[in-house]
């Protein structure tokens, strides 16, 4: 089977998976006890008002009608207005508003383990049973073991009291104030993401020629990075530990294999062996791990968003789910399902590139 035929089949098979996922979502929301009307009105409201709102939202119509409308809405990415979170605002608009900060957080929480965890793991694998290896391995286990919800609270609290703690640890010599360091910022709350202005350009004159540059505000950028780092480190901590451990094992496994021995025998430099032969093969088991973590980009950050008051997609999803906000939950679930399905397909695709031995049979 050709590569393209294989992917066409995968795509077709994904359709029933997506349909099944959104149907389950609909069933849980509409057949369970979650009541958007109660969430809108609260306990201080008489039932005459309940009936009115139910009619407005169309919740008194037959379930199959609602189901068909729901499915059609999903296909066109338009489920209408949010019921509870913000009436009169389209669910998609809300998602678009909340998405950037979650993506920003997810981006850094994938990047940090990628660029710390994997190199550390490879280092440990290349220098097994040295002090450096023990140090890195032990660190990996510790990071892996600390639960996010705990670590997040500790981070926030320690950074809030950075002056007190820095004085305490250095016996009053150093006074470090995290929120005033480099740029001033709040410790919690959403990071500012307006550092890049896609419309505005800046004119810069260099030696008589005028160049136009996209305007980019470095200070805001640094602030945005600085604000997102603590939650991103916490969120990435577990995967950092994971990737470190797996990277070490993978390197150890490859480095002891026969072909590496052969390479060494024919006199290749250590550098060439490591980069050309070991590195690439050791990456194979890491691919699914990294791709699974990409899911953090959208949905995995509920707790961190809550603790650091970032209020992004994760927070939105949780609030919408417990309040039965059908259009919002439906849209978010649909997007999550699509991402997971496509991520899986993409993962298979990557395998074939990294490791040509993987076939389609």
């Amino acid at each position: 089977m050709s590569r393209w035929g294989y992917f066409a089949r995968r795509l077709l098979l994904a359709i029933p998976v997506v349909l099944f996922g959104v149907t389950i979502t609909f069933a849980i929301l509409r057949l369970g006890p979650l009541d958007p009307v109660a969430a809108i009105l609260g306990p201080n409201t008489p039932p005459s008002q309940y009936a009115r709102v139910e009619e407005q939202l169309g919740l008194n119509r037959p379930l199959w009608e609602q189901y068909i409308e729901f499915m059609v809405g999903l296909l066109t990415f338009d489920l209408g207005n949010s019921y509870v979170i913000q009436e009169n605002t389209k669910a998609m608009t809300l998602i678009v508003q909340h998405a950037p900060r979650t993506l920003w957080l997810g981006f850094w929480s994938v990047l940090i383990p990628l660029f710390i965890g994997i190199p550390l793991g490879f280092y440990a694998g290349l220098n097994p049973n040295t002090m450096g290896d023990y140090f890195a391995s032990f660190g990996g286990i510790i990071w892996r073991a600390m639960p996010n919800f705990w670590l997040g609270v500790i981070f926030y609290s320690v950074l809030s009291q950075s002056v007190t703690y820095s004085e305490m640890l250095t016996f009053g010599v150093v006074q470090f104030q995290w929120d005033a360091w480099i740029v001033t910022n709040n410790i919690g709350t959403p990071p500012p993401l307006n550092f890049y202005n896609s419309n505005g350009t800046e004119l810069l004159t260099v030696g008589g020629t005028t160049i136009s540059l996209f305007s980019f505000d470095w200070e805001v950028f640094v602030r945005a990075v600085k604000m997102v780092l603590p939650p991103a480190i916490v969120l990435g901590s577990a995967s950092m530990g994971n990737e470190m451990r797996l990277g070490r094992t993978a390197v150890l496994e490859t480095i002891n294999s026969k072909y590496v021995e052969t390479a060494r025998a024919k006199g290749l430099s250590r550098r060439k062996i490591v980069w050309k032969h070991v590195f690439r093969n050791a990456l194979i088991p890491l691919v699914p791990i990294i791709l699974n973590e990409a899911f953090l980009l959208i949905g995995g950050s509920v707790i961190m968003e809550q603790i650091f008051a970032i209020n992004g997609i994760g927070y939105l999803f949780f609030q919408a789910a417990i309040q039965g906000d059908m259009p919002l939950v439906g849209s978010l679930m649909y997007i999550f399902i699509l991402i997971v399905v496509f991520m899986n397909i993409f993962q298979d695709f990557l395998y074939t590139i990294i490791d040509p031995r993987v076939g389609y049979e």
Partner: protein
Amino acid sequence: MTDNTSIDRRRFLKATGGTASAVAVAGCLGGGGEGDGTDTPEDTETEPMETATEQTTRDTGDDRELLDKTFQLINSTMSTLDPVAATDTASGTVIQNVFDALMNYPNGEIEVEPLLAADFEVSDDFTTYTFNIKEDAQFHNGDEVTAQDFVYSFERLAGSSNSRRAYFTTSYAMGIEQSADSDGNYEWGSLGATAVDDKTFELSLQQPFASTLEMLAYTSFSAVPEGIVGDHGNYNGDMAYEDFARNNPVGAGPFVFESWETNTSCDITRNEDYHGPVPHVAGVHWQVITDPDAAYNYGQNQNSDLVSMPTSQYDPSLVSVEQTDSKGREIGTYGPMRNGETVQYLKYSTINTFYIGLNAKNVDPAARKAMAYVNNQQEGVDEVFKGRGTPAYHLTPPGIYPGQAEGYNQHAEESYPYGYNTTDIESARQVMEDAGYGPNNKYEVTLTTYESDTWQGLGTILRDKLANAHVNLQLEEAPFSTLLNRGRNGNLGAYSLGWVMDWPAPDNFLGQLVPELTNTDQEGGAQGFYLDWDDSDTDAPQRASDAWDRISNNPAPTEEAQQTRNEAYVEMEEAMWDDMILLPAYHRADERMAYNWVDMPRVGAGGGSRQKLNNVYLNDRS
């Protein structure tokens, strides 16, 4: 402020309107008793204001000092800025500052004062209210506030598809004259709200309603410019509804709306042309933070001017009360806090009751009583809430109980049948054994609470005690919307909920307890609390029904009718005790902690969300 894990659940306490005590009721009664008494606003312009720390003589008149500082606060998630659509406290807090109504709770105080009304008259039969509207009041778009604007605003409340408080205009509360078409929809133009001329507004009620003036201070009754949105049958609307509710709310309040980024922040700025005292502060910024610990850290980092203090971080020993004012508010200091600062402290009672509902159909009468016997209200407040509340014995809160706090305490101490502030396991066991239960035949019941550590804490105490009285109490937590849905349909046994007043009178609380209304089998579910009290075999529900009839038949704001109502209120409370259909747990007390540079008036029993922030003054932050 999300300063208490037990209450910051979104949409829990929706009341955005008012609070008042029997004092306020009596106050308006005095006027009413004399026939068409005309009330003029007190001259507050030159009166020195009371602040949380001391009396200041800061000028509140025309040449007020205008600062360029912004008041920094925390809010929880807001859903809309349309006064008739908002049901949550977070939205109400902002709406309160952008919109003005005819009446107002000054600084959240329970005694209402005219706001956009210059003065008003009440007819002899208490069914017609005539308001003269202030001459110099104008909306943020520059239009003058007229009687026609009020007609439009009130009609939107009654008939708009966006209105979530239409029942305030019906016989449930005020009973403003109106008619409906054959489908039960409001008929546009039929509301008993008319513009006699540009500045004279008349309101006609079907029958007297004692809390009319208090009700009119609720944000739902705020003025919006005539014809601004098209959800009124006779108007096309100057702007799209989404625009008005989301991006451009136009009111006549002390602050002009600036921006609102969902789940992030909201900003309002000073209205230089405000008809009342122009705000000192240049604006107000609310950061949306819902996590109590995040809010705590935000306050500790001095990012907000008021300090958020979740119960988990709260240390009662750091409070030092220096004085208690005439309204029972405790004023003093709190600290040193984690960041070393000591802040101004204010504790005040708000009008609410938190209770355990005990459905008559699903919970055995013996178990209901056993639960009341073992429960020690004082212990619950002290151990779980660290003293941030007062023990509750009645459904009616002390501030509006006949005879106020004194009458409340006296009646509770003398008559509460299940042990006043005591744990009586012996009696609980006895009542269960009389009903045929024993060590090998335990009664099973589930207590469903909304998601709250504090309620789970109370539940654990109850469970451990009830284990000695042959009752096996299971604890269960449910999201708020689920809890309400199950309750309405009669699928709850014991459950926790609270009621915060819509208007400051016992009928707002006890009206939810009328046995016929608590029947969950009727179309649409229970109309009141989810108790199925009508299924009880005793004569208590009948007594409560009779008492409620007497209340309904004596609606007028006169001394005599008030007396009859007060007696009936107490009868309903006693009937509730006899059947133990509802176990009152506590009345929440609110606290305000402000950094020393904040100079703002004390909050009244209406709560912080009802305080307009135009009298806030900020000294140098340091």
